């Protein structure tokens, strides 16, 4: 194989693109390349953009990229769409909303199918962002559909996570359900020109107040009540700001960008940047070890052993846990 690493570090796009494929396919070359690229990583600002389908994530990413470009920063976009669980195929359509970005040599857009292996998506996207980082992209936008655990894991990769909402997608009960709102560093109400934006904002605010209590003073039956703020933490607390945007027109984008910059500054000021970096690398290490152990375990088993145990389990002669214990002893 020709050397892809040196040209990638020098900015050659075809080499980077081929490396990304190797990394995504988890090939030998890809794994070796990641080892050589790793010392060059750690410089980029990783920004996760997630939210329900139809909230306008791709259009928002398009606008954000334009904003970052106007500051002269190089931008990479990793757009993840789901694979079909039945055929393994995928239609990746995020580029449709990113036409404005074509022709700009400071932008690199890569579409990625979620493929489906457990934990695999998080591992693969972490590896892909490392390649972008090493290749000198200063801002990396990772776009995922916020529908499940794997997307939450992907968002955890990021220094700053944007959760995108749109008016009219659900009532305030949706907002207090546990889930992706909790991972938000910044909440974005996109399509804010549509009716219902105010009630969406109210619902999100209520949710945030529950999660980040501040001191409240109120009157009840003529008496003054005080509820103290929950934390006596001297470190400045980041309360996720709510920003409105209309991605189709670009309205609200400068304010959103400012919130992103403020969050980055907050992370650096509080030492949270290093903490997140460490947490991310820890997750990555754990995933790699887990995968290696898994492969080692199956390689050590005699063929057909799994099937034998499965049949026993299905006949209810053996519990899955007992079977697992036996298999672990045999391997």
């Amino acid at each position, binding site marked *: 194989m020709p050397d892809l690493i040196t040209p990638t570090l020098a900015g050659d796009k075809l080499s980077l693109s081929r490396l990304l494929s190797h990394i995504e396919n988890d090939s030998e070359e890809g794994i070796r390349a990641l080892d050589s690229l790793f010392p060059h990583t750690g410089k980029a600002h990783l920004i996760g953009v997630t939210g329900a389908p139809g909230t306008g994530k791709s259009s928002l990413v398009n606008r954000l990229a334009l904003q970052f470009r106007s500051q002269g920063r190089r931008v990479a976009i990793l757009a993840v769409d789901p694979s079909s669980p039945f055929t393994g*195929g995928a239609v990746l359509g995020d580029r449709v909303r990113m036409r404005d970005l074509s*022709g700009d040599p400071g932008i690199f857009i890569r579409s990625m199918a979620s493929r489906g292996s457990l934990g695999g998506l998080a591992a693969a996207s972490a590896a892909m962002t490392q390649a972008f980082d090493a290749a000198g992209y200063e801002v990396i936008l990772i776009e995922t559909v916020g529908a499940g655990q794997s997307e939450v894991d992907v968002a955890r990769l990021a220094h700053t996570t944007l959760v995108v909402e749109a008016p009219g997608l659900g009532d305030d009960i949706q907002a207090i359900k546990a889930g992706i709102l909790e991972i938000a560093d910044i909440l974005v109400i996109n399509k804010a020109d549509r009716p219902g934006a105010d009630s969406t904002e109210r619902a999100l605010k209520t949710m945030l107040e529950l999660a980040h209590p501040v001191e409240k003073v109120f009157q009840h039956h003529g008496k003054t009540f005080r509820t103290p703020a929950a934390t006596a933490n001297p470190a400045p607390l980041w309360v996720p700001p709510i920003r409105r945007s209309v991605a189709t027109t670009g309205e609200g984008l400068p304010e959103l960008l400012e919130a992103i910059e403020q969050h980055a500054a907050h992370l650096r000021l509080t030492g949270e940047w290093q903490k997140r970096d460490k947490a991310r690398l820890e997750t990555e290490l754990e995933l790699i070890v887990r995968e290696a152990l898994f492969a080692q375990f199956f390689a050590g088993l005699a063929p057909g052993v799994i099937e034998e145990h499965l049949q026993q389990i299905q006949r209810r002669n053996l519990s899955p846990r007992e079977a697992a214990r036996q298999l672990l002893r045999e391997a």
Partner: protein
Amino acid sequence: MTNRKIRVLVAKPGLDGHDRGAKVVARALRDAGMEVIYTGLRQTPEMIAEAALQEDVDVIGLSILSGAHMALVPRVMELLKANGQETVKVFLGGIIPDEDIPTLRQVGVTGVYGPGASTDQIVTDIQASFAA
């Protein structure tokens, strides 16, 4: 590697606005287990080549109904070559007169499909072009 999937860029260069065919093909390729990057309407050859480069695709499917294929397709082929992607296989669908086909093949187009072509045939041809 078992992880390898055929990656296809489906694009509509030129100015006609009929993308039904391109979408039907995109879906058929998805159902055949391929990863399809769909770029939408009114793409210039430059946009197509750029997307092909960033996505490291194995195949490009072009849909052209406007009659401009003799201008657009050679330009796409030229740009692919300039980017070092001459191994990418290009398939073309749309309203293509028979007399144009030899020239299109000469510039490197792997397959040409007119109205009535079955999606199964397209899938089979793409898969066959990688079996060799």
